[in-house]
């Protein structure tokens, strides 16, 4: 399978990865090679086979709905790139 430049630009946008034209072209070539490998799957007849999402087919475990975590805001915000007054700062999103 061969990906187009537009395909790769779209993937990069969805994945939030800034890429210049040279990087897009390099990624296109390498991803196309990887998808050739992946295409081997298409020859397999999987009619009637249930998808397997987990190693053991277990149901999700539940716990009591009680507060267990402590408030560690200061410890967690000490490692954030930019905080102020207990809030995480990001570029303005609403004019």
């Amino acid at each position, binding site marked *: 399978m061969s990906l187009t430049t537009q395909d790769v630009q779209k993937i990069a946008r969805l994945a939030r990865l800034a890429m210049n034209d040279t990087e897009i072209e390099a990624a296109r070539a390498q*991803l196309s090679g990887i998808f050739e490998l992946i*295409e081997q*799957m298409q020859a397999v007849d999987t009619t009637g086979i249930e998808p397997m999402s987990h190693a053991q087919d277990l149901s999700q475990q539940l716990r009591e709905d009680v507060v267990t975590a402590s408030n*560690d805001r200061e410890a967690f915000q000490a490692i*954030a790139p930019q905080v102020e007054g207990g809030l995480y700062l990001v570029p303005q999103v609403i004019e």
Partner: protein
Amino acid sequence: MLNHSLQQQGDALRAKKISSVELTQLYLDRIATHNPVLNAFVTVESAKSLAQAKAADAQLAAGSAQALTGIPIAQKDIFCAQGWRTTCGSKMLDNFISPYDAHVITQFNNAGAVNLGKTNMDEFAMGSSNETSYFGPVRNPWDIKAVPGGSSGGAAAAVAARLCAAATGTDTGGSIRQPAALCGVTGIKPTYGTVSRYGMIAFASSLDQAGPMARSAEDCALMLNVMTGHDPRDSTSLVRDKEDYTRELNKPLAGLRIGLPREFFAEGLSQDVGQCVQAAVAEYQKLGATVVEISLPNAKLAVPVYYVLAPAEASSNLSRFDGVRYGYRAPDYTDLTDMYEKTRAQGFGEEVKRRIMIGTYVLSHGYYDAYYLQAQKIRRLIAQDFTEAFKKCDVIMGPTSPSTAFNLGEKGDDPVQMYLSDIYTIAVNLAGLPGMSIPCGTGANAMPVGLQIIGDYFKEAQMLNVAHQYQLATDWHSRAPQGL
């Protein structure tokens, strides 16, 4: 002391022949000497390690020591450890000081073990050679021109070079077993769900599983005793009774049925590796085992299936790295989207970006059924092959890796060639089965060869028994690289 087993080190500590501070300092000195070349450790904090050692000595003096009390253990830099820099091999987390402990770290702390430092790894555990680490490649102690394997390459190299007695690793597609094979050490990936993933930085959550790497199966059993157990903070952590993984070590192997999958001995396997594996199987026959040929007809699809499922899960897991709450943030940006895109472009390395892009594509509208769903269906076929096989045998054996360690840079430009180095290990993760690798000889250029042992679900104690009996009869596992 450097060639002592964990049991022997523990005995020496409890008999006061050596203190934990002395033992820890011995390893710290070795790391200072050899790490500039090997690059097996990313972070060493002597003061922190020695403080833990001092506390362990107090426990030893008080007579309240457990099996691993006072023994220094190297931790893969994928495990969050409170107050320690935890990078996952990435620029994205270069400045990340973890505010909490992973469950595995808590377990070792509770066991009185000493955190000796954080080992190098492929970035976000994505790689088979340790070359994708932001902190530079690890070198194989058997030949510094060669890779140690990956992603737990720092752990494997550290154990092989006697920079630690034992280490932790994680295995999503072979990341414990393949580096163990390439560095001549013993490593086991237990059944999925056996070790909590809490605080273990996520790559592909339905496949990721932690396990020990050490010089022998006996040491791995002691490590597993500490690492395993239910943890409600990981929703996939299994509720099971606590096991003693040493309990079957000394059982004789008479009557053991070994399954050899014909697909694992076909085209693509290096002759030298194949010969070592066959010789190991012959040794097992001398120990009383019988051999039966089996087939895993869908195993050849494991690599393509994995390179859909693992990147899909990774693209989701790694979306958390956005430059807002922790880790790297790009210095210059115009708006929020620009900040995300530049942060991620600058913070992630090439292989990580490649896998995020594969995952993003296979999950995108219009491609989900053809890729993701089809891969999940074939995953079931692969798992069913193992279920059928285990009706005829107790354990499955084969090569861990198709070749011995390759040279640094040798596979750098071709991701597909690199992906194929995990061809024998990936199916085990897809099925969720336990798998291990033990040294079984040397191949081309006298580099180590690994024998892979695959067990049925929850058969770790039996696999460790199978490995231990071989290690009693042979000495491949106790050989050390020259010059260290």
